[in-house]
C-alpha cells in the first residue's frame, strides 16, 4: 500500500460526508446505499465513523459530473477514467467525483428499483416472463399509458409482482419541484419541447419542466435515465431504435460496426445515415459501490497500491463478493489504527424458535462442504460449449446440460456416464461434422469418442500443436474435415482426417476474426455462426465475419 506524501489523514475519526447530486442511472436510495456500504468497508476495519450531512460543508463532498466539472481534472467520456478523489484536507481535499458519462450500476447490469405497482419498491428481475415472452429490460407492453414497467420475480404471469421503472413520466430528480414528473409539451425560451432536453445547460444533464411553461413557472427537474436509454454519444437518454440503418445496412441489435474500439452502439432513430443520432448501449455498467469504496480510500489518505487484488489498485475489476485485501487493511490501519471495541451483534428473536428451526450442533460447528451448482443458470463461465447432434451442449466440472431441439434446457447429466474416459474439467470439445466423432481436449491431452469407443488420452503435440501449448480453448468446424483450434490469441487449422495441423499455422486470431475478444475462453460453431465467449457474454460472427450480435450466454443461449 501507499499513502500520500506526508501521510495526509483526517485529524478526527468522526468523518462527515454529503451527497451533492445523483446520477440519472441509479435511483437515490440505491445510490445512498452504495455510498453507505462503501464507507462501511473502511469503518469495519478502523475506528473511523461516517456521518451523512444533508447541508453545509462535509469532510467528503460527493458529486457526479461530466467532462469539465469544476476542477482542474476533466473527465473523459464513457469508460477510461471513472472517478477521482482528493486526499484529506480542507476545501476540495477529501472530495470524491464520479464521471457521469459512465453507466453506474451495481456492476451486473441495470439495477432498477421500481416504484408503485405491488412489489413495494423491489428491484426488477431480468429476464422476466410476461404473456409467454421473455423480457430483459423494462417494457411498455401491456400498457396504454406509455409507462415502462418490469416484473420483480422471474415470471409475471405466475406471480403478478410488478413495479414501474424510472421514467420522466413518473418522476424527476433534483431540480426545484419535489421530484414532480415532466409535463410534455413544455415551453422553454419560447420553444416547445416534447421530451427531456439538454438545451440551456452546459453540464450535459437532461431536464424537463414540471409545468407546461418553464418561462413563466421556472419549475424543473432532471430526467432519470430509462434502462433502455443510450449513454454518451449525442442522444443521451434516448432509447435505441431497432431496426436502424447504418451505412445502408440494417441492424436489429447494438453493434460495434463503424468503431475501432469494439464498443457497442445503436442509433436512436431508424436511420443513422440520415439523422446521425446515436449513443452507447447499456452494458453491465460499473459498480458504484466498488468505485466509491476505492475513491473513499483516497479521501481517507490511501494512494494507489501495486497489489492487483487490492481495492486501491488503480484498475477497475468487478468482484461479486467483495473482500477488502490485506494490503488495504494494513494501509488504512497504518493511518488510523485498527478498529477497537466490540462488533455490533445482530438482534436476536424474542420468541423461542420451534424445534425444527434450532440449528443442530453439526450445523453450527462444522463447515458445510460447498456443492458445485447443479443449476446451469448459476454458472458464470462454462468449461466448453459446443453443438453435438444439432443440440447445444454446456460443460462444467463433470456435468453437462443441453438445449433440446425444442429449445428446452435439460440436465445436468454426468459426463462420466457418457464419456467416462474424459476428465471432469475439459477445455474444449467439438464434433467432427463428417464422422460425428467427438474430440475432447483437457490440458495437453485429447480423447476421441466414436459412439462408446474411445481413443486416448493422446498428447496434443501429436496433432502438431506446440509442446508448450497449455490448452486448447475453442474449436470451429470449417468445412468438411477442417477444424480451427484456438488457444490464447492464436489458432491452428487441424486436418481431421490426417490428424495433423496444416502448414501456415498458427495465425493471429485478431487478424482473421476482427471485432471479437481476442482472448476468448471458448469458441464454437452454432447454427452456422461463430461464437466467441468472454465471461458471460458471446460475440456472434456471421459467415462474412461481421459481428452481428453480442449477447448473454445465459439469457440467449441457455434461456435462463
Amino acid at each position, binding site marked *: 500500500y501507499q499513502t500520500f506524501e506526508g501521510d495526509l489523514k483526517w485529524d478526527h475519526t468522526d468523518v462527515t460526508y454529503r451527497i451533492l447530486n445523483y446520477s440519472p442511472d441509479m435511483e437515490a436510495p440505491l445510490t445512498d446505499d452504495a455510498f453507505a456500504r462503501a464507507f462501511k468497508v473502511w469503518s469495519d476495519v478502523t475506528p473511523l465513523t461516517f456521518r451523512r450531512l444533508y447541508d453545509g460543508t462535509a469532510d467528503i463532498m460527493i458529486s457526479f459530473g461530466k467532462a469539465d466539472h469544476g476542477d482542474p481534472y476533466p473527465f473523459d467520456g464513457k469508460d477510461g477514467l471513472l472517478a*477521482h478523489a482528493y486526499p484529506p484536507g480542507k476545501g476540495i481535499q477529501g472530495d470524491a467525483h464520479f464521471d457521469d458519462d459512465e453507466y453506474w450500476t451495481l456492476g451486473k447490469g441495470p439495477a432498477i428499483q421500481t416504484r408503485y405497482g405491488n412489489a413495494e419498491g423491489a428491484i426488477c428481475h431480468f429476464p422476466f416472463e410476461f404473456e409467454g415472452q421473455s423480457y430483459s429490460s423494462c417494457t411498455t407492453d401491456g400498457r396504454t399509458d406509455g409507462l415502462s414497467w418490469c416484473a420483480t420475480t422471474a415470471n409475471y404471469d405466475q406471480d403478478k409482482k410488478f413495479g414501474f421503472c424510472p421514467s420522466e413520466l413518473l418522476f424527476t430528480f433534483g431540480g426545484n419541484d419535489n421530484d414532480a414528473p415532466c409535463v410534455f409539451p413544455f415551453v422553454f425560451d419560447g420553444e416547445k419541447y416534447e421530451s427531456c432536453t439538454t438545451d440551456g445547460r452546459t453540464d450535459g444533464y437532461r431536464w424537463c419542466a414540471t409545468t407546461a411553461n418553464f418561462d413563466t413557472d421556472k419549475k424543473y427537474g432532471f430526467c432519470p435515465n430509462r434502462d433502455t436509454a443510450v449513454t454518451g454519444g449525442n442522444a443521451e437518454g434516448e432509447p435505441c431504435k431497432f431496426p436502424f440503418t447504418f451505412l445502408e445496412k440494417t441492424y436489429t441489435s447494438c453493434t460495434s460496426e463503424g468503431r475501432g474500439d469494439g464498443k457497442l452502439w445503436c442509433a436512436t432513430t431508424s436511420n443513422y445515415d440520415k439523422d446521425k443520432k446515436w449513443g452507447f448501449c447499456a452494458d453491465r455498467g460499473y459498480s458504484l459501490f466498488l468505485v466509491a469504496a476505492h475513491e473513499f480510500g483516497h479521501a481517507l489518505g490511501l494512494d494507489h497500491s501495486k497489489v492487483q487484488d487490492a481495492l486501491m489498485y488503480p*484498475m477497475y475489476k468487478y468482484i461479486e463478493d467483495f473482500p477488502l485485501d490485506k494490503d488495504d487493511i494494513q494501509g488504512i490501519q497504518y493511518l488510523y489504527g485498527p478498529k477497537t471495541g466490540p462488533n455490533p451483534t445482530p438482534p436476536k428473536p424474542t420468541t423461542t424458535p420451534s424445534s425444527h428451526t434450532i440449528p443442530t450442533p453439526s450445523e453450527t460447528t462444522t463447515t458445510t462442504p460447498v456443492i458445485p451448482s447443479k443449476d446451469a443458470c448459476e454458472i458464470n463461465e462454462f468449461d466448453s460449449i459446443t453443438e453435438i447432434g444439432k443440440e447445444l451442449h454446456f460443460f462444467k466440472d463433470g456435468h453437462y446440460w443441453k438445449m433440446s431441439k425444442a429449445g428446452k434446457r435439460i440436465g445436468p447429466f454426468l459426463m462420466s456416464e457418457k464419456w467416462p474416459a474424459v476428465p471432469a474439467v475439459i477445455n474444449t470439445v467439438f464434433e467432427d461434422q463428417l464422422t460425428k466423432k467427438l474430440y475432447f481436449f483437457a490440458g495437453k491431452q485429447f480423447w476421441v469418442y466414436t459412439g462408446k469407443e474411445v481413443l486416448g488420452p493422446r498428447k496434443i503435440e501429436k496433432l502438431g500443436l506446440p509442446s508448450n501449448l497449455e490448452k486448447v480453448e475453442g474449436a470451429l468446424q470449417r468445412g468438411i474435415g477442417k477444424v480451427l483450434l484456438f488457444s490464447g490469441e492464436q489458432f491452428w487449422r487441424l486436418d481431421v482426417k490426417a490428424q495433423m495441423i496444416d502448414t501456415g499455422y498458427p495465425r493471429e486470431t485478431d487478424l482473421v476474426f*476482427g*471485432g471479437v475478444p481476442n482472448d476468448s475462453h471458448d469458441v464454437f460453431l452454432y447454427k452456422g455462426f461463430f461464437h466467441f465467449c468472454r465471461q458471460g457474454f458471446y460475440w456472434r460472427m456471421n459467415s462474412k465475419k461481421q459481428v452481428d450480435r453480442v449477447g448473454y450466454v445465459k439469457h440467449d443461449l441457455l434461456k435462463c
Partner: protein
Amino acid sequence: WSVPLKSVFVTFPGDAIKNMTDVELADEYLKRYGYIDVLKKSTLQGFFSSSDALKNLQSNLGLEETGKLDAATIDAMKKPRCGVPDVRN
C-alpha cells in the same frame, strides 16, 4: 477486442472518445497519470529514449517490465480506472 475487419470507421458526432493511435494513447496516459513530467518531457522522444516512464508504469501495474509499448501494456492502458495519478510530480 480485436479490430473489426473490412469495416469503415466512422467519426461519430458528439463522441467523447478520441480515435487515437497506440502511441498517442500511451503519451496521453503517461502524462495524465504522472509518469511523464509534463513540464520536463513533453515529447514522445523524451520518454521513448529512456523508456523509464513505461517501466515505471509496468512496475506499478504489475506487468512485465519491458520498457516497451507492448500489447499487455496497451491493453492495461485501455482498462477503466481511477483518475488519481499513480505518480505525483
